[in-house]
Structure formats: structure tokens, C-alpha cells
């Protein structure tokens, strides 16, 4: 929402008046006054330094505060974040600790098609060949998470990298990078994945993830590039350029924060897409597999006709629930992370901690009444 000029007063602010028009010499007292606790030695405020050396601890504390505590206390107040994070933590635990707690399964592990909650040695029942469904689900979490992580990271890193550099650098660099991006955008995604998977026969889940993301990053790169093009012209970027801030830290500190909400949403969506794509391709039998995973489970259940057989329906339902669960977790997390990068939310959360008031999200604005 565009802020009308009459709205500045809503932000808590104090003095706007310059308290003295005098020059340096006339205010030695005030300079003395503002000597701060640790008593750095100064003649003028422009040369002031602290006497206390900054310790490694201080620096770590500061970073922790910025990157961990503040985001966390914003998210703490948002149920979506709590639920989303909890769901993902559960999956992570299953994928890490779960595999040690639950024994791997094998055909004829139990009887064929035991229903869920009937036999407590197979809590979620077994499939047609007598494999334990709980165990299969737990063990497929690992490759799925690897796939998802690798694919999503690949999309984000490549997309953001290409977008940032080509948008900011412009010129020749932009032309080259944009052409590469366009090529990938225009290759049809699914056939590419099928061809590549036939050629490469990827077995490692991380490789599968990257493969599935092969065409997805280009769209992100293009979107980021166009946003960077606008940001590049902003006054604060120009000011940083004038200060000769190295390009890398300019991109990282000035431009990237503005793109973060967008990147995070894309990260989450990419992760979901990877899971769906992987499941779909396993289901279609296009990807080679050696171990069970949710997609493979679905496929074999389907082939065994679980859709029509009430006694086998759990074989289909359990992996579906597993897939939906992680997807819901990701969606919720994505929605709530948006706020973490919003400076207004950050500021508000801090001030409510100080016991001061918060400020309104929307402000009165008269521009919308011009057309009546």
C-alpha cells in the first residue's frame, strides 16, 4: 500500500528539530555529555571509538539475534509457522532418528495385507507381499527429503544467482546469462526430465532432485532478474555504489533482502513441486529405483488394485497422507516466513517486547478516492 504523506506521524518518532544550530566549537559540553559508558577517547563525534574491544562473543551474539532470535519471535506469534515448523520437524525426526528406531522390512516380513491397527508388530499394516508399511514409509522419508532438499536448493541457488548477476551486471553478462535462462525456460520440462533420467539413470535421491529441478530454476532466474533491474535503479543502491561497496556485498546486503520473501516462497514451492514430480515419475515408472519410496509404494499399491480393494486401501492411503502432510507443512511455513523478512513485522515485534505500542499495518490513504 502506498503511504500517503500524511501518515508519517503514525510511526513513533521523536525529535525532528535540530537542537542546536551551533557549530562544533560551541558545544564541547554536549560532546562530553555524550561520551558513552565505556569511555572511548574522543575529540569529536566523528572520531569516536570504543575502548572495549569487540569480542568474538559479541559478534556471535549479534548474528544470533539477527538471524535466529528475531525471526523466531516473529514466527512464535503465528500459528501457521508453529504448525508448519512442527510438521517439518516431525518429518526430519522420522528421517533421522526414526530409521534407527524402526527395523527395515522385507517381503514376507508379516502376513499379506494386514490392516492398520490390527497387529501391533505392524501398526500400519502390511502390503501384499507382507512388507511393513510403517517401516517402508519411514525409510522412504530419507530419500524424499534428500531429493526435496537438493532440488529446492538447486533451483534457488541457480535461479537467484543467475537472476542477481544478470540483472545487476547488465551488458554482455546479462545477454549471455539471459540467453541460457531462455533456453531452459523454453525446453519442455517433463520430456527433458524423462530423457535425462533415461540417459543418466540416476539412483542417488539428491541427483534425482537436481534432475527434477533442471528446468525449474530458469523461471525464477527470469523473475529475479526483472526485480533486480528495478532495484538497481533505487537510490540506496546508487548510494552504495558511490561508497564503493564491493559488488558481492552490495548484492547480498542491499538487494537480496528485498528479494527474500519472494525467494522463500519459491523455495517452498520448489520443494513441493519436487516431491510431487518425483512421486508422479516413480508412479509412472519413469525413474529407476532400487529402494522403496512413497511414489513406488503408490505405484505398487495401484498395480495391485488397491483402489478397488477395501482391504488394501491403507497401502495407498499411508503414502498419500505422508505426501500431503509434508506439503501442508511446507505451505504453512512458506506463508509465515514471508513476515520474517518484513521490516515492519520485525520492528513491531521488537517494540511490543519493549512494551511500546505497535503501529498499524495499513494507514489512511486518500488516493483511492480520486476516481469516483
Amino acid at each position, binding site marked *: 500500500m502506498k503511504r500517503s504523506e500524511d501518515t508519517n*506521524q503514525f510511526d513513533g518518532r521523536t525529535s525532528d528539530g535540530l537542537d542546536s544550530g551551533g557549530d562544533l566549537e560551541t558545544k564541547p559540553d554536549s560532546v562530553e555529555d*555524550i561520551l558513552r559508558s565505556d569511555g572511548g577517547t574522543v575529540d569529536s563525534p*566523528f572520531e569516536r571509538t570504543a575502548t572495549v574491544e569487540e569480542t568474538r562473543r559479541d559478534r556471535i551474539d549479534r548474528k544470533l539475534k539477527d538471524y535466529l532470535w528475531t525471526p523466531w519471535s516473529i514466527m512464535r506469534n503465528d500459528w501457521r509457522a508453529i504448525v508448519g515448523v512442527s510438521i517439518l520437524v516431525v518429518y526430519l525426526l522420522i528421517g533421522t532418528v526414526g530409521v534407527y528406531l524402526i527395523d527395515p522390512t522385507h517381503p514376507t516380513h508379516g502376513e499379506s495385507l494386514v490392516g492398520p491397527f490390527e497387529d501391533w508388530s505392524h501398526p500400519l499394516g502390511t502390503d501384499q507381499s507382507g512388507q511393513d508399511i510403517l517401516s517402508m514409509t519411514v525409510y522412504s522419508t530419507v530419500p524424499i527429503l534428500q531429493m526435496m532438499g537438493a532440488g529446492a536448493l538447486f533451483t534457488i541457488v541457480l535461479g537467484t544467482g543467475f537472476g542477481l548477476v544478470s540483472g545487476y551486471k547488465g551488458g554482455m553478462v546479462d545477454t549471455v546469462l539471459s540467453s541460457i535462462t531462455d533456453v531452459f525456460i523454453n525446453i519442455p520440462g517433463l520430456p527433458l526430465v524423462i530423457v535425462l533420467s533415461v540417459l543418466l539413470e540416476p539412483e542417488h535421491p539428491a541427483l534425482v532432485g537436481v534432475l527434477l529441478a533442471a528446468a525449474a530454476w530458469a523461471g525464477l532466474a527470469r523473475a529475479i532478474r526483472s526485480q533486480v533491474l528495478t532495484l538497481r535503479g533505487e537510490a540506496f543502491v546508487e548510494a552504495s555504489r558511490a561508497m564503493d561497496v564491493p559488488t558481492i556485498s552490495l548484492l547480498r546486503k542491499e538487494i537480496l533482502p528485498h528479494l527474500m520473501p519472494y525467494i522463500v516462497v519459491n523455495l517452498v514451492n520448489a520443494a513441493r513441486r519436487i516431491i510431487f514430480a518425483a512421486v508422479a515419475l516413480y508412479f509412472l515408472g519413469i525413474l529407476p529405483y532400487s529402494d522403496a519410496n512413497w511414489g513406488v509404494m503408490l505405484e505398487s499399491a495401484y498395480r495391485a488394485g488397491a483402489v478397488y480393494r477395501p482391504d488394501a486401501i491403507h497401502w495407498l492411503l499411508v503414502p498419500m497422507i505422508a505426501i500431503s502432510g509434508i506439503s501442508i507443512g511446507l505451505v504453512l511455513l512458506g506463508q509465515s516466513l514471508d513476515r520474517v523478512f518484513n521490516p515492519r513485522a520485525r520492528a513491531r515485534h521488537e517494540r511490543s517486547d519493549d512494551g511500546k505500542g505497535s503501529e498499524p499495518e495499513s494507514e489512511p490513504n486518500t488516493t483511492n478516492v480520486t476516481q469516483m
Partner: protein
Amino acid sequence: MTISESDASLVDSTGTDTIVELRDTSVSFGMDRGESRVLNEVNIDIERNEILGVIGESGSGKSMFASALLDAVPAPGTTTGDVIYHPEDGDPVDVTGLSKSELKQFRWEEISMVFQGAMSSFNPVRSVRTHFVETLSAHDYDVDAGIERAKDLLEDLYLEPERMLESYPHELSGGMKQRVLIALSLVLEPEMLVMDEPTAALDLLMQQSIISLLNEIQEKHDLTIVFITHDLPLVADLSDRLAVLYAFEFAEIGPADEILERPAHPYTRALLNATPNLSAPLEQMRPIEGESPDPVNIPPGCSYHPRCPLADEQCKSIDPGPYDAGDSRNHDVYCHHWEQSIDDLERAFTESNSDDSPATRNASHSDDAEPLVSLEDVEVQFGSENDGWLDFGESDVVTAVDGISFDIYENDVVVLVGESGCGKTTLGKTAVGLQRPTDGTIEYKDRDIWKGSSGSSTLEDEEIRRALQIVHQDPGSSLNSHQRVRSILSTPLNRWHPDLDGNDRRERILAMLEYVGISPPEDYIERYPHQLSGGEKQRVALIRAMLVNPDLILADEAVSALDVSLRVSIMDLMIELQDAFDTSFLSVSHDLSNARYLAEKTGGRIGVMYLGELVEIGSAEQIIQNPQHPYTQALRWATPELEQDDDPDENPIRTIDVPDQKNMPSGCRYHTRCPDARETCRTQKPELVDLSNEDGVQRTACFRVDDDHEYWDSEPITDDAVDGDEDDDHVNVSG
């Protein structure tokens, strides 16, 4: 509780013909911090056929006042009290009680509104004619008759009606759009026109031209105009009455000349003193201390008491009602001590004046002084010959800066003024190495700044890069909204003082914040830009540039976006920092009053630019008091003054609109608008002639300064359509 000696505003209304009356009108918004009153029980009678100027700084509730008149307060806000409209014949209408469809009819047909954002009021895919047709048919007006009327209106506003109607919004310049919008708002023959900062985005000349047009239009159509602005001088001349808003209430309402000459409210007085202008002595201009209150937390009693030098116990507890001030019956002032106000404030000002008036410096640059930055025949072109393989149009090269040379010395101040599009910002950016010139050289201490740099965005030499910094126009975008003040100010320290650790940086930043009057700094250092006011943002931006320790700072309209009363304080700060850091300023401004303040106080120079060329440059005194170039004279005419001028001068330009940049006029570029242009000016280009004398330096590019020039023998240029009308009646619309 309100006490008042006279219920002045109510009594006075009986005799006169009131068109709109406001009674105890409030607008409030519920917020999680509490209820915020953005208009607090205001009473006013707007008289038929008057021009009422409403003055208020940002955050004074002036936009809400405009919305309340039309019952157009945006959604969560609620309007209470009465807004009563008296039609010329018929019964009074209570505006707040109108139904949706009645309101729709009421707005446009009875009261219409023109806002600042002319650009967003147009639908970009519809022609101007469609806008008129839609408005007319939405209100069941006869379209043909309406269009005829629209043509008359456009003609009155010096636009070519046929051409305008067929244009699309993007083909029009800002000034044209604003004028079309005025015509659009008048096409349904409303009784009253409410204008909220209608000229804020426009150039001086355009602004002043529109203001003079308003006068004519008001007379011709028997309009009542409410003109709302933060810029006091702008309406000073235009208005019949002035109303000063402070903290969501009126502070003073009265005839314009009385308010300007004998302001009775301390705030009005302070505001007048804080407004940069061309004629008042510099010592009289001083910022208003303190800041406007928060709408959630308006001080009890008189809302001005925390800032008022006359405040006493009574002021703190009792809300001053309207007192009758001055000679005329309709001058109301909301101050208990208005009688003392005049003398006491005079005294208060003289006292504080004596101890800290920064002496006017006199930067005298002897001719042999080494320039710090020297520009030599700088030329900057934008655009390409042909924009791409699908672009069949003509080449669109725009020459933004065309062969300008001048020097900036150490501790110098140069202010570039001109209309938008004259290339002043481009020239400024070129001078500090942020824009690579297409031709010519820029030298920093005799070293070519672009030497060795390959790209167009980075200077190779670190030292030169450090020496040239920039402070931007719009405080909104000059700071990264995602960074706290701490990280914003750490950036230059990280880059240029790598020896400082985190604690040192923090101390240095705290000290700097304190130095520029932001306190308590510990609180501010953790804030994000959206938690700062405009003035504070500008201060932070200034510190950021200063921390690099530069030799030259480009201040790109550094104060234009601020409230009038803050400008003086920021400019004082710039001057103070300049002293402390030994820097030079190259300032860019479209406002001659600001330019004068900055340049005169530092003994600097003002350079006037027109269409990419420097037409006159000289000391502030010479440019303001003794302008030689007709264009400088026009700018001076266009700068509003804080006085009522009974006999406004003729508009000194022949056409309002700036010529097309892709098709520059030949000879002297100003000849299409210059009132003194002669045939010679069409063909020959005047060079800058040195006119410096003991009063100050001055160089002017106009044939008129040379008594022997053949200019004097050539024929005056007369416009093609001469028909005995005044010169400014026909306008070559371009654009």
C-alpha cells in the same frame, strides 16, 4: 473543555453566504495503539466564491480535511460531526448523511476534487476524450454539450483542445495531465473545487502558471476553491482567506493579508519564519523546534504547547477556543495569548538569534585557486539511435547535458536549479562519477575520474570514488527499507574504516546520530527506515555520506520532499556538516528559495540550467537580486513569495510547456519561450559571458548582456498566431 470569548466562527457566518460549513467535524481511525484522531473537531465556514488556502505540514490532518468535505474518508476511518453543504438555491444538505448514489452525484456535480497524483487518476489505455465521455455519461449529462464545454475549459487552460482529447495519458507531460484533470473536474460545472496539493509534483514555472490560471478560472466560473497545501508561499498570493492547520485542528483562520502580515498564532508565525523565500533576510529564517504530535497522543489543552515559547499553565490544561483577532471580524485564532504573541515572539526570536546564528560565510575563490572537481564540456546522451530491431520509430537520443563546463572548489557550494528534464540531476550525477559522460571530461584534482574504468558504473580509482558522494532526493528510497539504521550506517564504515570493530562502529554511529540531533540515539540505531520521519531519514542519509569522508557531496533535491518548516533545519545541518567535514556541496534543486538559502548562507553559487545547458551561473545575491538571463528572471517570477501582491506581474514566458527534448530548438534554446527573443536568437547560440563585478561573480548566456550585439538590430520573434492578444494567450503545445 473549550472556552472561547467569542463564538466567532459561528457568529460570523450569519452575514455571509456560506457554501460549506463544518461543525465539530472529526475523523478518527481505530488503531491498536488507541484511537487516532486525524481531524479533531474542526469548525469552519467556507464562503461562496472564495479561494480558501488551507496550510498544514504533513501530519496535520490536511488530507483528511479534504476527504471530510466530500465524505470520502477511506474505509476504516469514521467521520463524526456535521458537514453541511448549502446549494445556491435549495435546502442545506448534510453530506455525511448522503447515500452512496447521492454521494456519487454530489461529488463531481457539486464539489469536485483534484489530487496530487494526477498520473494515477488516468486510465492509461483510454484517451482523454474517453475520460470526459465516461464522466459525463456516468452522471447522465449531455455528452456533446459536455465535450464542447470541455474544449472551452482546455482552451482556458492553454491546451489545444482537439489534440488533447485525442491524446493518451502517457503522451502528456505532468503539467498537462494536471491541467486536463482540472478541466475534467470542472466539466460537470461543480460549485466548489477541492484541491489537495495539486501542484506538488510540478515544476516551478508550471506550478505558478497553474496557480495564475486558477485565479482566472475561479472568476470565470464563479467557483469556490479550497486549496490545500503544505507550501505556504504558494497560496499566499492566490487565497482570499487562509486557514492554518496544526495537529488536526485549525490554529488560525483569517484573511490572507492579515495572516501574512500580522499572524496572531505563534505557530503561524513560526511557520512563516521557517519558510525559505527569496526576499526575507536569512537571519529571519529559522526552523520550528520540536515536532508535530502523534494523532493518538495529542497534548491536552493547546496542542501546540510543547513547542510554544509562550506556553503557560492555562495553555496546558485549557483548549483555546476561537478568539477574534485583528481588525476584520472573521479572523479567528485558537490561542489564549494571541495578543502577546506578536511582541513576545519577536523578542524570543531575537534572543535566540543572537547566540547561534551561523554567520554567513563568504567563500571567496580567487581565480588561481585549484578546483576540486572540474567539468569540461560535459555531454550526456541517453537512448540509442534505434531501440531494437522492432523499433521503426525515429532515433530517440535525448541529450540531457550538452557541453557544460564549470569548476567546484574546496569548501564550495554550487546549487543547480532548473525545471525537471533540464538535466540538472544528470549533470550532478556526472560530476560525482555516477553517470559516465558521453563526451567531455571530469577531473578531480587534475585527474580524469573515468581514466582506467571500463564499465559505465564504477570508477577505478578508490580515492576518487571515496571523495565523491551522493545524498538523494527522496528520503523514502535513499535508505534500504530492509536494514536498520545500524547496518545502514555501518556500510560506509565497513568499507572505509575496516580497522573499526563492531563496538567502535556502534559508538561512532551513536555519536553521529546525536550530533545531528537524533536522540536518544540508542533507540534510533535499532530502527528501520519506516520508523523514522522524513527529516530523520534525510539526516541519516547525510550522515551516511559524511562517514565516507568525501570531498564533494551531490545533494539531489535533498530537502524538496520535506515539509517547508523542516527544510531550513536540514539545510542548516548541511552547512554545519560542511564546516565540520570540509566538504563541498553540489546541490540540485527545482526551488529557487531553497537554492538561495543554501547558496547565500555559504557564499556559494547558483547555476541555472535550461534544456541541458547552463544559462547563467553566479553568486546567490547576483542571481536572485540581479538576474540577467530572461529564464532566470522567469524562475524568479515563478517562485512564490510570502506576500500578497496586488498587481501580479505578467507571466514572463510565452509558452508554459517545455519544448520536446528530442527536437531541441535551434540557436538559443530558450527562444521558443523567451519574451525578449529576436530573430538572431533563432540562429545563433549565445555563449556564457562573464559579468562578474565587485558584487559577485556572474556569467550569463544571453545576447542581451552584450550591448553591441547584432541581436539589438534584429526583429523580435513574434508568434505565428499574433492577433493582438497578450503573448501568453497562445501556447505551442508540445510533448
